[in-house]
Structure formats: C-alpha cells, structure tokens
C-alpha cells in the first residue's frame, strides 16, 4: 500500500470572471521513504497540487473530482478539524521564502516550541526546550540556546529555512512537502538544504515531495520525477527515465 495516493484530482478556482481549471485529473502515488520531484514551469499547478492535498487552498478553490488517499484511507471529504489533526502529524510543508514564512514578531525558538507543544502537549517546559534544541541540532543549526532567542530578521536566508524545516519536523511527519524550498536561496545554500533533505530522509525515513522548477535540483535529490504542464501531469517515472525522455523529446521545460 502506498503512503499517499492521488487519483483523478481536479481543482478549479471560481472567480467572478469564470472558472479556472488549476488541476486536471492528476493521478500519482507516493511511496514510503522516497523523494518525488514535481517539476514544471511557473503557474503549472505545482503549488496548487500540494495545497489541495493539504486543504490549504483559499475559499474560492474547490476540489471538483478525485480522491486523496492516505495509507488506504480516503481524506478527500475530511473536515477542517480532521485535516488539522493530519497537518500537525502526517503532513508537513516547507515554503519558498523562509523570511516571510516565519512570524517576524516571534523568536524562532518560540515558533519551534509552538509546533512541539501542539504535537506533544504533555511535555514540561524543560523537556520542550530540550526537544527544540534537538530539532535545531537535527537541521544543522549551531548554538541552539542562543539561536532560539533570535528573531527571523536576525537570521540569514539559509538559517531561516533551517528553522522552517525544524518546525516542519517537529510534527515528525511521514510526508514533507517542500514547495520551492530552495528557490529563494543562493546556490551554495541550495545545495546545503538539499543535502539536509537527503540526510533527513536517511534519519527519519519520511517521504519528501520536492516541488521545483529547477531540473538540477530534481536530478540531484529525487528518486522519481513527475512532470506537470498546464495543470496536467504529463509524465512520471524514475529520474533517469524521465530526463532521457525529456532529452529525447527535446521539449525541455
């Protein structure tokens, strides 16, 4: 049984001007412990795909048809309350711009601690601090005690992204969505964050959905690649297979 299955998923945005089809009958599945890169040009529906699975779409967007199945259980009709449960434990997400993804008015330690408290409400204050330090160590942040007191504006982009990843990991997720998680960072930091993803997969065994428009990122980190265009999934397969096909077809994205 696959960890996550998406069948015939169609999502539309209903705007005053009319209906906009963002996803058209997308189907794929995610295996335990794999890294799946979702690749495509800007606006092809990569982010909408992640957000529809997580039900984080704005009110004007509706799932028209299709099924989302987690470990054999259908979650398409889950209520907000049930989804909240799932978001805090099964799924997690890392965003494109770490500087805006963190709340500017809270120290990063507080923000990580909040995620820990939601996941493990029984922990004492001291145990929680310990867990925060553990998470910060896990994502490669040095001097956790000092860093925890800092505010997002005092961090570099790479460090901020590591904090976001620490928050995502607090939930001990089975699936991590990384929505363009390396795009806003400079090249060396991109490589470090990708290495971190690979390392985390080794340590925790979670699956990662790596959304990117950068073929280099996909080739370096992914096991399988899904190609998207105009809201449709045009191909899915092993990295070598897909890249060979792309070169063969000469329609490089």
């Amino acid at each position, binding site marked *: 049984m696959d960890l996550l299955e998406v069948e015939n998923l169609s999502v539309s945005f209903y705007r005053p001007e009319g209906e906009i089809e963002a996803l058209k009958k997308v189907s794929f599945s995610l295996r335990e412990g794999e890294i799946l890169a979702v690749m495509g040009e800007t606006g092809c529906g990569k982010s909408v795909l992640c957000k529809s699975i997580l039900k984080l779409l704005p009110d004007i967007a509706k799932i028209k048809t299709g099924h989302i199945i987690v470990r054999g259980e259908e979650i398409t009709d889950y209520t*907000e309350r049930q989804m909240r449960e799932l978001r805090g434990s099964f799924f997690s997400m890392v965003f494109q711009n770490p500087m805006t993804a963190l709340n500017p008015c809270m120290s990063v330690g507080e923000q990580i601690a909040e995620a820990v408290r939601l996941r493990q409400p029984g922990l004492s204050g001291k145990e929680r601090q310990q867990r925060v330090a553990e998470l910060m160590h896990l994502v490669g942040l040095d001097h956790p005690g000092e860093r925890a007191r800092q505010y997002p504006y005092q961090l570099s982009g790479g460090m901020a992204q590591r904090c976001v990843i620490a928050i995502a990991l607090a939930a001990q997720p089975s699936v991590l969505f990384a929505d363009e998680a390396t795009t806003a960072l400079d090249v060396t930091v991109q490589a470090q964050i990708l290495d971190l993803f690979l390392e985390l997969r080794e340590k925790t065994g979670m699956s990662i959905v790596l959304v990117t428009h950068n073929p280099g990122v996909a080739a370096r980190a992914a096991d399988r690649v899904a190609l998207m265009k105009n809201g449709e999934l045009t191909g899915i397969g092993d990295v070598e297979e897909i890249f060979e096909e792309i070169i063969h077809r000469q329609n490089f994205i």
Partner: protein
Amino acid sequence: MRKLYIGRILYNIGKFALRVIVLSVLVFTISRLAPGDPLYAYYGERVEKMSVAQQEQARERLGLRKPLFTQYARWLQGAFHGDFGISYQYKTDVKEVIAARIGNTLILGGLGFLLIFVLALLLGLFCAWREDRAADRIICRIGTVTSCVPEFWLALLLLLVFAVWLDWLPGSGAYSIGKEGDVADRAVHLVLPLTVVVLGHLWYYAFQVRNRLLEEVRADYVLLARMKGLSGKQVLYRHCLRGALPSYLSMMAVALPHILGGTYVVETVFSYPGIGTLAYESARYQDYNLLMVVSLLTGTMVIFCNMLAGIISGRIDPRMRIHSLTGGGEVRGC
C-alpha cells in the same frame, strides 16, 4: 545593562521635556497670531464703550503690550512656579477653571476611550475571523452607518427617545443637584453621553483593526502556522494579532487625546460640564492663558502616549526597537 537602562530613561524624559517646550512655543505664537481681541474675553461688550486710552491701559495691565518673546518668557517663568495666569473670561486662576471641569471630562472621555479600545479590538478580531461571512458583512454595514451619523444628531435622537419619550435616563448634566458624590447617580447621567462618544468612534477603529488583521492573515507565515496544526482562530490571535498590535497601539495613542478632547459636541448637547467647551471657547475668545493650558494638556498627552506606544510596540515587535539594528538581540527598548 543597568546603566544602559537608566540612561535610556533619562534620554526619554529629556526628549519628552523638549517636545513639550517646543509645543508650548508653537501654541503661544499661533494663538497670538490669530485675529481677534483678547479684551473682549475680559470685558465683553463693554470694550466698545471704552476709550482708546482705556483700552491701552487694560492691555498694559494684562501684559499684552510687551514683545511676544518677553510675554512668553514671563509665561514660562510663571509656569515653572505653577502659575499659569488668569483666565480672561472667568477672571480667576486658570487652574481653578480647569480643575472644576477636568474630572468630568476624564470620566466621560477616559471611560469612552477604554470602551472603544477594548470593543474595537474585539469587534475587529471577530470580523477578521468571520471575514466575508454573514456576521462580518452585517457588522460592517451597521458600523459604516453608525460612523457616518453625525454625533449631534445621534445625541439628540437618543435624548428624545430615552430622556423625553421613555423618560428612563436623565438628559443633561453630570449629576443631579445635591448628589455630587453619588456614584450611581453619576453613572446614570453618563449612559447617554458615553453611548454617543463610543458609537461615534468605535467602528472607525474596529475597521482599522479588521483590515490590519486581514493583511496579516494573507501573510506567508500564516500557512506555516496552519501547517503546525493550528486552527484559523488560533492563528489569528496567536500570530496575526501580534503583528497588528503595534500599529493599533500607535493609532490609539493618537486617538486618546482626540477622544478625550473631542467630546465638545456631546458635552454641549447633554449640557455636560467638561473641558471640551472650555477648549472651544478659549480659542474663540482669545482667552490666551486658558487656551495654553488646555492645548498643552492635550498635547502633552499626545506626546506621552506616542512614546508609550513606541515602547510597547518595541516589546511586541523587536524590529521596532531603535537600537536593535546594530546591537543584535541583546539591547532591549526601555
């Protein structure tokens, strides 16, 4: 660290004093530049029957013939000794004129401000939470209407309904004659004026809170907070409120004297003895000494509240601390 703290406090006090003095110079100059004759405040209609020599003599006596700078220096000297001069109109010490009325205004305006402060925040939060649903839309419509209704009209309407037709509440004054110390009696007299003050301002501030919060709700960090498993409501008051509070506080800091001093219309309609009327009359009749003190009272409040809001905002949002840009995380605003 301790030394730094005391230094910051002294620095802030110095800044405060400087601002108050600059303000007093401005009010002093502007009030004297305005057209009109202060003798009218003192003698009323009798001025017209006085000879030119008599008028000059009266001016001499009130110290109005000296150069502006000397007049200001004398005023400042007196002010440092607690002597703010006499009111031309009431012919007694300015302090006495104000002391008799400021309590009433502080009660009406202060209570009004507190109510507005709390209710606007709650209403704004509620509307932001229910954005574009039925409840939010209805409140927005009602709010727009109430904030557009002129205060004097609303005051008259309430007066007509509750004081004249239904006769439930008293329609004028701050207390019944002979019951000056009776809290219950004062409270009953406050209901109608307070309602007008609150209704007149509430929606403007609530709407600002709502819009500020909705800006925050669209920020990226909200998605991350929701990914942690927080509900929309929890994100709103744990995360968004924190981002919206600094601008709300600085807005309310300016609003405090506005609401306190802006009770003129209400005071007039309900014959409520406060300083709103004083402020208006002193400016109208060139009652310089009274005008100085009333303006300085409001002005000092604006300056003080702004500084207070700045300090509180710095505590909420570290990016607003003045020295944090260079000092890293260690320097705290005081």
